[in-house]
Each structure stands twice: as structure tokens, then as C-alpha cells.
């Protein structure tokens, strides 16, 4: 490794990945905020608030797609219930926002007042603390994933059986959260947020800060995923995907490895959900619907499984397509999504990234 002798800066520049990170960082933290806030609205370069919030949403989806890729693309575990982890992160943060927006008289959110409740149920304890909320955002999905994964992986449930059970998991939670008595606002969920840390939530400045935070979180996750995938841990994950019995007979316990990446993936989704909720201003049980979770798998498949950049592209492209499609021909979106999944699975097993490599004439 002669590169160790090169000056630090040169090494950074010589590594296209670091250049990529630097460019992304500049765009997220400087370019887009300036185009949104400083460039006058009548200028062609102005970015509307709508565009910024759409981009912010895409960044959150990209985190979920990346998390999905770690378990599906690299470890071979297809989850069709990742939406539950995203939603739990969102609900955990939503609880804090609801407390901040609580009715001045009763100190309770409106939906609790309508239920004739006079105090917060026990599981809302701590949600008035911002720090506790941040912990809950990763711990709630992490714990659920750990417990679920422990039983599923220990029983060696694999393949399509595992996928179906994850689907059932998110569906069961959706039904639970639909009930008003569950204490999370029933089918309306949480909305009408007012402040974060006392700062008004609906201003352009708050929006751009949330957007930038989402971008930074995504970059941090991307960096972490690179480190994981390129470590021996990552090679063990891929080995589990390709020949699990050989991994076992080589002396590794696949249960520990699967459980670790599965739980980490769920936590990443939790963070994505927590950043998503203040940007879109609502969280309700429909986020847990099976269709949402399937869409997550489609982002990853479209972008390219087993590549780290692919899922980010997939999440962005499919979401952008969706926002155009649902405005122009809303009734056909699900057909289109299903068709897209079939085409990608049959003709583009490596998604957009595989196609790109082919076009550039590189051997994959």
C-alpha cells in the first residue's frame, strides 16, 4: 500500500469516494439552502419549498432503501415489513412533537381529550424529553427487530417464509395502531405539529435545517455502510447470503451476524422515520401498510441490490416518478409499480447500477 506515503489531501482527492462525499455535503448544506432561501423567488434558479420538502422526503426514503440493501442485497434476507421500523421511528418522534403541540388547558393532545383521557398512558412517559425521544427513535425499532429476529433466525426461518412473516408483522402493527384505544391517535395518527425544541416547525428555515440534517444522516449511514460492507463482517454477510451452511461449518454463528445487521437496519429506518415526520407533518398507520414495505423493496431492487449507491438512486427515482404519476394518472400507479418490479426482476437483476455498468462496458 504505497498510498500511505501520499500527502493526506492528495489521498483524499485521489479517492473518488471522498470527492463524492464532499460534493454531496456541499450540495446538501450550502447549495440547496442557498437556492431555497437566498435566491429570489422569481429567479429560474429558485428552489420552491415544495421541491425542498420532496427532496427531504427522498433523503429519508434513501436511508430506508440503504438499510434494506444491507439486509437484502448483502445478507440475502428479504424483508417485506421494513415499513414498521420506519413508522416506529416516526411515531417515537411524533410523540415528542404531539407533547409540544398539546392543548394548553389539558396538557394533552386533542385525540386523548376526545377519548376522555385525563393523563398520558404509561408508555408516553419520557416523551416530553428530547434526548429520551432521540433514544426511543432507535431503541423502539431496534428492540422490536431484535426480538423478532431472535426468534425468526433462531428457528432458521428463511426465504419467502421470512418475508411473509415480516409482512404479517407490519400488518399486525398497522391494525394495532388503527385502534383509538392504543393511544397513538388511531387512523388519524399524529399531525398538527407546532414546534421542535420550541422553534416553529412550519417555517422555511426549520424546513431547510431538517432537510440538511436528513442529508447529513444519510451521508453518515452511507459511510457506516461502506465500512461495514468492506470489513470482514461484510464479507461474512455476503457469504451467509451465498452459502450459509459453509459459513456455519467455518465456525461462524450466522444467528449473531444476521441479528446484528437486521437490528442495525431497523435502527437506520427508525432514524429515517424520525426525520421524515417533522418534514411531512404527519404520521399515521398507513405507513405500516404492506404496500409501503413492498415499495421499499422495489426501491432497492430498481437501484441495484448489493451496491450502496443503487438503492439511493432507486428511492429517488421511484419517488420522483410516483409524485408525477399520482398527480397525472393516480389510478394506474400501483399497476405501474407492479410492472416495474417484474421488469426489473426479470431483465435488470442488478437494477439501474447493473445497467449502468453494462452500458459503460465494465464487467460487473
Amino acid at each position: 500500500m504505497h498510498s500511505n506515503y501520499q500527502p493526506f489531501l492528495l489521498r483524499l482527492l485521489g479517492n473518488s469516494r471522498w470527492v463524492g462525499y464532499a460534493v454531496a455535503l456541499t450540495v446538501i448544506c450550502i447549495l440547496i439552502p442557498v437556492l431555497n432561501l437566498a435566491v429570489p423567488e422569481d429567479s429560474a434558479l429558485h428552489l420552491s419549498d415544495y421541491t425542498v420538502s420532496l427532496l427531504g422526503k427522498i433523503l429519508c426514503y434513501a436511508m430506508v432503501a440503504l438499510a434494506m440493501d444491507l439486509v437484502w442485497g448483502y445478507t440475502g434476507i428479504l424483508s417485506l415489513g421494513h415499513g414498521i421500523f420506519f413508522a416506529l421511528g416516526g411515531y417515537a418522534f411524533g410523540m415528542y412533537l404531539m407533547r409540544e403541540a398539546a392543548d394548553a388547558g389539558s396538557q394533552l393532545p386533542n385525540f386523548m381529550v376526545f377519548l376522555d383521557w385525563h393523563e398520558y398512558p404509561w408508555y408516553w412517559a419520557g416523551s416530553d424529553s428530547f434526548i429520551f425521544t432521540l433514544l426511543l427513535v432507535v431503541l423502539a425499532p431496534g428492540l422490536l427487530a431484535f426480538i423478532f429476529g431472535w426468534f425468526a433466525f433462531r428457528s432458521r426461518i428463511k426465504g419467502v417464509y421470512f418475508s411473509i412473516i415480516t409482512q404479517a408483522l407490519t400488518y399486525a402493527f398497522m391494525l394495532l395502531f388503527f385502534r383509538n384505544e392504543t393511544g397513538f391517535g388511531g387512523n388519524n395518527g399524529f399531525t398538527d405539529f407546532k414546534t421542535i425544541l420550541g422553534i416553529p416547525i412550519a417555517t422555511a428555515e426549520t424546513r431547510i435545517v431538517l432537510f440538511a440534517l436528513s442529508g447529513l444522516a444519510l451521508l453518515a449511514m452511507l459511510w457506516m455502510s461502506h465500512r461495514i460492507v468492506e470489513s470482514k463482517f461484510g464479507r461474512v454477510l455476503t457469504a451467509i447470503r451465498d452459502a450459509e451452511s459453509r459459513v456455519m461449518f467455518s465456525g461462524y454463528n450466522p444467528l449473531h451476524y444476521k441479528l446484528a445487521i437486521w437490528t442495525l437496519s431497523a435502527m437506520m429506518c427508525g432514524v429515517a422515520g424520525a426525520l421524515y415526520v417533522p418534514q411531512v407533518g404527519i404520521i399515521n398507520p398507513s405507513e405500516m401498510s404492506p404496500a409501503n414495505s413492498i415499495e421499499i423493496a422495489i426501491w432497492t431492487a430498481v437501484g441495484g441490490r448489493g451496491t450502496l449507491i443503487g438503492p439511493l438512486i432507486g428511492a429517488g427515482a421511484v419517488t420522483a416518478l410516483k409524485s408525477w404519476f399520482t398527480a397525472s394518472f393516480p389510478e394506474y400507479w400501483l399497476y405501474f409499480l407492479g410492472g416495474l418490479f417484474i421488469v426489473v426482476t426479470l431483465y435488470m437483476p442488478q437494477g439501474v447500477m447493473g445497467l449502468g455498468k453494462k452500458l459503460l462496458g465494465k464487467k460487473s
Partner: protein
Amino acid sequence: MNGQENMTTDDGYVSGSHLLQPGVLDTSHGVVLYLDDVTVSFDGFRALNKLSFSVDVGELRCIIGPNGAGKTTMMDSITGKTRPDSGSLFFGQTLDLTRMSEAEIAQAGIGRKFQKPTVFEQHTVFENLELALKCDKRIWHSLFGKLTGQQRDAIDEIMNTIVLQELANSRAGLLSHGQKQWLEIGMLLAQQPQLLLLDEPVAGMTDHETERTAELLNTLAGKHSIVVVEHDMDFVASIARKVTVLHEGSVLAEGDMATVQSNEQVIEVYLGR
């Protein structure tokens, strides 16, 4: 590691000469693998029927038998993939294989080659050996551990042994069938096992490759204890010192190749088909 001495000595049992060490292989009685009355049934069918035999330290043992004799089930029970209904299975004197998981058994020193070559196709030859290499296999070490120079040398040495050093950076999926078989044997060697279980190691190999595999196994015997399950009788004759014939889940005959081949029962059920 006092226990290490016990692994290699086979100078007989002297009372009180060593301490029992949990989790460490103890072969001071000269036996590395011990099966006693092992029975495995699947839906009433007895794949193994009170199977008893033992393998000595440094021995190269061949197991033959017609289809359905229970050879693969025997391998499965030794490596923890299948749990016996009754009977005992010991690795050395102290390690009860019926109470250990696949990974624990592998770490204790039993390496297994599958019938169909099973390597990590998306990884390079080097990475395959790196993953198999004996070391701490827990998550933390995999995340932050780095290969030491010694470990690199060990991998290089194995690549020389299995003649794949030129292909160190090729994806294992691109190897020929015979090369994959060799890579898998190399991965077993990287685990530094005390006992190697090889399920049809020369299946699908050319005559030349088969010959080289026989040579390789002959050099490994002594350093390792080896159990080979094989159909190719010429190959068995070229490596085996002692042959065990399985039939309907139990031992039909045992002895050197000539004895076994002249055994009436063996001729009836297997050789003279």
C-alpha cells in the same frame, strides 16, 4: 494452553497426567472421534441404526457403502446438523458433539467438505480462505480485526498447496469444478481442524486431479485425522489404510481394503452388485 499438548500426543493414557479442559480437544487416549450406538430416524426410517465406530488420531479412514447406507446422515450428526435420537458422539474424550452447535463444532476442530463443492462464489479465492481461516469468529473481531502478516502467509501457503495462487484474486464462482473442490479442501485446511470430514472429495474431478487429491490427502494424514466418504473404489484403494463399510445405518465390515473386499456380506450388498 496446556491443552494443546494433549491434542497431539497419542502416547496412551496415564492417569493424572493432564487436566481436563472444557472446550479443548483431548485425544490422550488416541481416539479422535467416537460414535456409540448412534440412531437417527426420519419419520420412522432409521437412517442410522445403532452405529458404532471410532477413528484414531492421525488416521485416514474411508467410509463406503451403497446409497442410503447413512453416510451423509453420519456426517450430519457429527457436524451438528442433525441431532441423533439416541447414542453418544464424542470428539476426543471430552467434547460431546450432541450438545454443540454447528459453529461450535467447527471451532472445536472438525472441518467438513460437502458433496457438492460449496465455496463462496462471489468472493475471491483469497477471501474464501480468509473467511475460513482459524481466528476469532465473533462479530466484533470481524468488524474491526485486520489480517496479520502471519495469517497472510498462512493463506499464501494454503494457496500453494491447492495450486490456486495464480487465481488468488479471481472470483471463486469462475473456478472449474475440480478447482472448487480444491478450494474447499483449502478452506478446511485454513480452519486448522483436527478432524477433516470429506464427502466425495473427487466427485467430478479428472483422473489427473483425482491423483493429485489422493497425494494431497496422503500427505495430510498423520497431521490431521481424516474421514473420507467416497464411491470411487480406485481412489479409496489408493488412499485407504482402513475401510469401514456402512449398510442400512450400521457397520457391516471394517478392516483393510483386501479384507473388506473379500468379505462375503460386503460383496453381496455392495461390491458384487
